[in-house]
């Protein structure tokens, strides 16, 4: 009987702990997957921009300021390091966020300017690009939210007892997360492209 009890106790202990090692691993993988998704969607936006800039140039070539701003912001995003190593480096992560945020603001300004050109707004190509940009911004938002949740789950596991002991053992640390957007600094183009009347 005693043997049975001790075996059961051992099993219970092992179960409780599994020490969260496997949980940490799977949550870590979730983060990597979430990051890939975020990257995909930012890349999608990145790819849309040249077309968009050219279409706007066709109708509003003298809006040089905002067009150049967008091109510059896109170039600085292109120069960023974006592999998974960014996830362990707070500084690189912050830089990434900032660069993407600047691109978002530049795009928003571009769309506001485009509103003033009725011929541009009526252009079929431009309408398609608008739809794609809107969709992409939405997907970025969804990917970011899922990434944020994945990191929160992981960080909680890393910090809670007893899995924090396992985390320390294997040198697993909390990961940086996206900062909640500051309303002024980083607002994805929440532009309503449909202004009722045509």
């Amino acid at each position: 009987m005693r043997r049975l009890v001790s075996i059961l106790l051992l099993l219970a202990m092992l179960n409780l702990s599994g020490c969260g090692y496997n949980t940490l691993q799977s949550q870590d993988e979730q983060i990597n997957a979430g990051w890939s998704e975020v990257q995909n969607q930012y890349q999608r936006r990145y790819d849309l921009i040249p077309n968009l800039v050219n279409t706007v140039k066709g109708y509003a070539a003298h809006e040089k300021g905002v067009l150049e701003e967008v091109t510059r912001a896109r170039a600085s995003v292109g120069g960023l390091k974006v592999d998974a190593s960014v996830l362990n480096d707070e500084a690189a992560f912050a830089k990434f966020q900032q660069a993407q945020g600047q691109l978002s603001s530049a795009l928003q300004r571009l769309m506001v300017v485009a509103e003033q050109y009725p011929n541009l707004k009526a252009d079929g190509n431009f309408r398609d690009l608008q739809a794609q940009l809107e969709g992409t911004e939405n997907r970025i938002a969804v990917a970011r939210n899922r990434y944020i949740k994945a990191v929160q789950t992981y960080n909680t596991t890393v910090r809670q007892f007893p899995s924090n002991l396992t985390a320390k053992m294997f040198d697993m640390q909390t990961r940086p997360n996206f900062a909640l957007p500051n309303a002024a600094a980083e607002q994805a183009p929440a532009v309503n492209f449909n202004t009722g009347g045509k």
Partner: protein
Amino acid sequence: MKTLRALLALLLCLPLWLPAEVAVPELQRRVTDLTATLTVEQVNTLENQLRTLEQDKGSQVAVLMVPSTGEETIFDYGMRVVEHWRLGRQGVDDGVLLLIAKNDRKTQILVGRGLEGALPDITAKRILQDLVRPRLRDGDFDGGIRSGVDAIGKVLAGEALPPPAKRSHKGSSNNVWLLLFAAAFLAPILRQLFGRTGGSLVGGGLAAGAGWFMGGLLLALGGFVLGVMIMLLLGSGRMGGLYIGGGGGWGGGGGGFSGGGGDFGGGGASGDW
């Protein structure tokens, strides 16, 4: 006086937030109209159209009309809806939601991951602005929704998707109860004939056979297990308490509409009128 103060203190401690989010309705039908704009016939016609679409292609398309999405954008609200409803088949992710916020005058199409190739953002936008919008402007909500659904159906018709699974009846809880009662009645008889263990196995086998006949392998396996359990329990002479613990779990509420576990990545488009 003391109790009054205590009560007051308690009240002050209660969270006084005002819920700013509009609630996501439970998924019960393919067409959910919370604004009471559509007539019953119109809803039924749409439902039939969507049901046929699911039977033919396997994709789950749903329509939701709400008065307003409150402070959230229609996209954010829509995402909450689809993440709760899980339209589309798991793994295939072929769900589509057509969402209309009547008082906000906003429309939204949300497309499951698996259909983002067939129904890209541009197409969704065109459906909303070119087909749905003019009809909504005229106040023809039924026409607007139908034109949207027709267009979505046409797009899906051209798309090669995994064939829809045969709808097995494992959702019906009635079959399980039938098996259990049969098992209970037969138990003492079989015990007489075959002895305790033998009776259990034969009873289990019969339950399995009935289960297979009624609903496929899953029900058969479940039937076998339950049958054996019941035989063993009742075979010793007690006719009392049917141990029906496990039985209730499967009846999924047959007949209703439920999501298939599909995932949404945020694709689609929004419009207005």
